């Protein structure tokens, strides 16, 4: 059976035009998706049942026992951390936040190790953005800064930017100019009209130089800035200012390099300056398919997009203090629930060691690096394959993911709700 308009739950592009062929409870073919999508839909080797550590070994346990154990660990903890959330649907995230509220826990999502600094910059200066269709239909200038979509968001350029024909650009590839800024010549840089090779850690200076030119103060600049010739900067600023509609996309290359949130602030302020001349927007390339959804859900319930601490009863937010990495580094939390992410693969070593020292529970379909740090893992259905639910695309467009096959796995929300109900009774 072929199912059309299937939503890919891999990256923040959240492509919703996949055609998936299923046979029984197996996906046998995927059309329209990129290789990442194919891997996601066709991959198996899922964990079959919940597993619990028993001395040095893993022991299979039933779902009910696993849920009881998880609830018990969280109820016993003084300072539990509920982490992850970017790999699950909004309904599960909602339960997570309410659970954190009851437990007086810290709840944090993967923004903490990716676009957290971007969010902090937005909290200082705002965010002039738009939906991706606005870019596809109008933008004649595209900037990728510290982002390599060909690898991380393979269909971003074909669906939304470089190659996407739109209403006002019938032959996008010819009519659009693409500018790429990066520290090395990436695959994306190869197709750029202008490639700016910036010295590592010098993005801030480069952004400031562009702002100066846009402001008409280019005279003050030296011959090269951040390893880039002034002539090129003037040329690029000119392309941006004479755009009818410009759209900048930035990735972790800008967010996580030296300067961090200050870089993003500078990029947003450049965008704002450009709006005095023409139309310009800026958008982060959000990585996980529903990381933006976790920011949205956290925000409407707690007021903050990530790193929310309920220990004082109220919702408290202070990145650097209430962010997971900092809490783990301080050895502060005494239990951790991981949902829909793999901190074992992304967190610094000392954080991982602490996760291994405390009772860590993982809710995830697959065995991954975090499994090795956990005491208990509950496999669940994969949202977008055997479970459905809400996701928010990188630009904030909410899409309901589809369920294409039936399996016996419970969904994230079913498991979390069972744990939540136990906690509710006990608190």
């Amino acid at each position, binding site marked *: 059976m072929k199912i059309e308009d299937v939503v890919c739950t891999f990256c923040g592009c959240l492509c919703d035009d996949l055609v998936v062929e299923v046979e029984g409870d197996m996906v046998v073919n995927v059309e329209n998706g990129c290789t990442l999508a194919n891997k996601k839909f066709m991959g198996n080797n899922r964990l079959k049942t919940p597993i619990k550590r028993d001395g040095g070994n893993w022991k299979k346990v039933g779902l009910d026992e696993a849920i009881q154990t998880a609830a018990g660990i969280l109820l016993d903890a003084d300072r539990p951390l509920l982490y992850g959330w970017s790999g699950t649907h909004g309904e599960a995230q909602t339960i997570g936040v309410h659970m954190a509220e009851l437990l007086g826990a810290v709840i944090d999502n993967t923004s903490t190790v990716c676009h957290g600094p971007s969010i902090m910059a937005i909290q200082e200066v705002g965010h002039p953005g738009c*939906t991706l*269709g606005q870019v*596809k239909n109008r933008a004649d200038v595209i900037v990728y800064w510290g982002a390599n979509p060909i690898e991380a968001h393979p269909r971003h350029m074909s669906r939304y930017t470089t190659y996407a024909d739109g209403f006002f650009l019938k032959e996008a590839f010819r009519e659009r100019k693409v500018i790429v800024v990066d520290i090395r010549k990436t695959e994306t840089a190869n197709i750029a009209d202008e490639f700016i090779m910036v010295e590592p850690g010098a993005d801030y200076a480069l952004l400031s130089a562009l702002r100066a030119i846009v402001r008409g103060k280019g005279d003050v600049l030296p011959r090269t800035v951040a390893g880039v010739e002034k002539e090129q900067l003037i040329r690029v600023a000119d392309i941006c200012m004479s755009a009818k509609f410009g759209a900048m996309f930035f990735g972790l290359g800008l967010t996580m390099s030296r300067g961090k949130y200050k870089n993003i602030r500078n990029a947003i302020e450049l965008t704002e300056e450009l709006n005095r001349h023409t139309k310009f927007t800026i958008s982060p390339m959000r990585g996980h398919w529903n990381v933006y959804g976790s920011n949205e859900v956290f925000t409407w319930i*707690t007021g903050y997009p990530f790193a929310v601490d309920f220990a004082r009863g*109220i*919702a408290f937010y202070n990145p650097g203090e209430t962010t997971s990495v900092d809490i783990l580094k301080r050895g502060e939390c005494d239990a951790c629930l991981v949902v829909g992410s793999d901190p074992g693969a992304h967190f610094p070593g000392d954080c991982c060691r602490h996760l291994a020292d405390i009772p860590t529970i993982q809710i995830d379909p697959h065995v991954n690096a975090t499994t090795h740090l956990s005491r208990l893992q509950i496999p669940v259905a994969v949202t977008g394959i055997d479970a459905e639910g809400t996701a928010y695309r990188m630009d*904030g467009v909410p899409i309901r993911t589809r369920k294409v096959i039936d399996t016996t796995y419970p969904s994230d929300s079913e498991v979390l709700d069972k744990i939540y109900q136990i906690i509710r009774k006990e608190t």
Partner: protein
Amino acid sequence: MSELLIKNACVIDPLNGINGDVMDIAIRDGRIVEDVGSSAEVIDADRCLTLPGGIDSHTHVCGTKVNFGRYMSPEDMRAGRTSRNGSMHVTSGYSVPTTFGNSYRYSTMGYTTLLEGAMAPLEARHTHEEFTATPHQDMMANTLFDGNWSVMEAVREKDVKRAAAVVAWILSAAKGFAIKLTNPGGTEAWGWGEDVSSIHDTVPYFEVTPAEIIETMIRANELLRLPHSVHLHCNNLGVPGNYRTTLDTMNLVPDLNSRRQSLYLTHLQFHSYGGTTWRDIDSRSEEIIRVVNASPHIVIDMGQIMFGRTTTMTADGPMEFKLYMLHHNKWSNHDVELETGSGIIPVYYSKKSVVNCVMWAIGLELALQAKNPWQCLLTTDNPNGAPFVKYPEIIALLMSKRYRDQECALLDPRTEKRVPLMAIDRELDWNEIAIMTRAGQSRALGIESLGKGHLAPGAEADVAIYPIRTTEIDPSAQFQQVMAGFSRTMYTIKRGRVVARNGEVIVEGANSTIWVKPRVSHEYDLGNDPEFAKKFQQYYTVRMRNYPVQETYLPRGVCIETEADL
């Protein structure tokens, strides 16, 4: 079966012509009934003011831009926070509270029904998710059509029926309630960083004018027999001299509906400015209200501003950018493909700013000069003019000349020459306030027949009992008591159940979402139109089949099906 009897209620129920009678109200299974049995639960209202549940006919509480207002403003989140308490969740935020914050604060003020002022259809699912998390009010969503490409194409073809068909399909798909036009044409122009500056400017590429969009949509609205009229945020919001645009707009409106207005103009305070720049801005409330008074087919809401900190948020992207150019604080913008835009900036309204003083005066003047309170409803365009928690202060200002004088004495001294407020003696009465905060909204929104905004048998049992004895206080002098009284009900009853008492919400809510589905003939059902589908596929970034909001997002949806003339 659950029964409740409210005894000794001093009832003001303008839709039923009841003005201050002390009576009992019987409730069974969420509806008002003639009487109940002797085992009914009894509440003694003790001769206190008892009104139908409050209805806000224009507020921004849920959806993409509201949530972005929270997201970008941790300083606002810190400015109002409460911890978990009984059945109340944690809340954060002052001007843009979290969904539960909005819901609890509205509920303790006696509000039981809200119309979200602006929802982009493409992002409707988000609005509905937040509606579910705003559990103590029944919710509706104004659905944005100001920059809708299919609508503008129909307008260009002078095809009202086609425009209506587009609205029908999108309204049903987005599970929206009414047609909202925010700076019609301007939001599309903003896709190129431009705006329109009069209702006769043409929109780039589409070659239609705001006037044509407004007129076509008013007619399409009636073809679809929608409960509410077109809900308009005029062009040129906040621009000195914009009262001319507003007058031009009001002159366009045909009288097409005998039950309610044909056009609802929202937050008119922001559209009643004279002058040419911020230096010489003055009040033109008199010119505006003269036309309103002569046009029974028009209803407006105030859009009152109140001094202090707040956050402005609107689909009017270009206006927010202009405002940002004045304030230079922080600015967010979010254009929505093929449909509309939006912008957000924080502001501080100061008594030391003559511009802000003029704005403050204009809102009050509109309400005080409107002959018919059914035509001028109380709003702040929450949170644009002020957070809704300021409503009790506004009520007190409208009821007390003395309070106004006291406040006017604190304004920038230049204000007096620019506004007529100081010369207006009128003080509104309890009945007029009841009209401006619930009965008028019910009629203007067309939800009277759902049992909203009144207390006759058959009505929804949404009731607010305030600790105010209207016979014992003189609002003109005791305005502090008026303010305190409206800030916190003794009881808020939602669908027959006490949900809030003395400022505390005591149960988990279970609201409904009211949406509209116009039934059209096969020929006008765009779901069957290959041309519409093709364009959709080409230009939207979401597939047509993934666009409609599934019913699972409206766990207690109430669908109003209309028989369209199509």
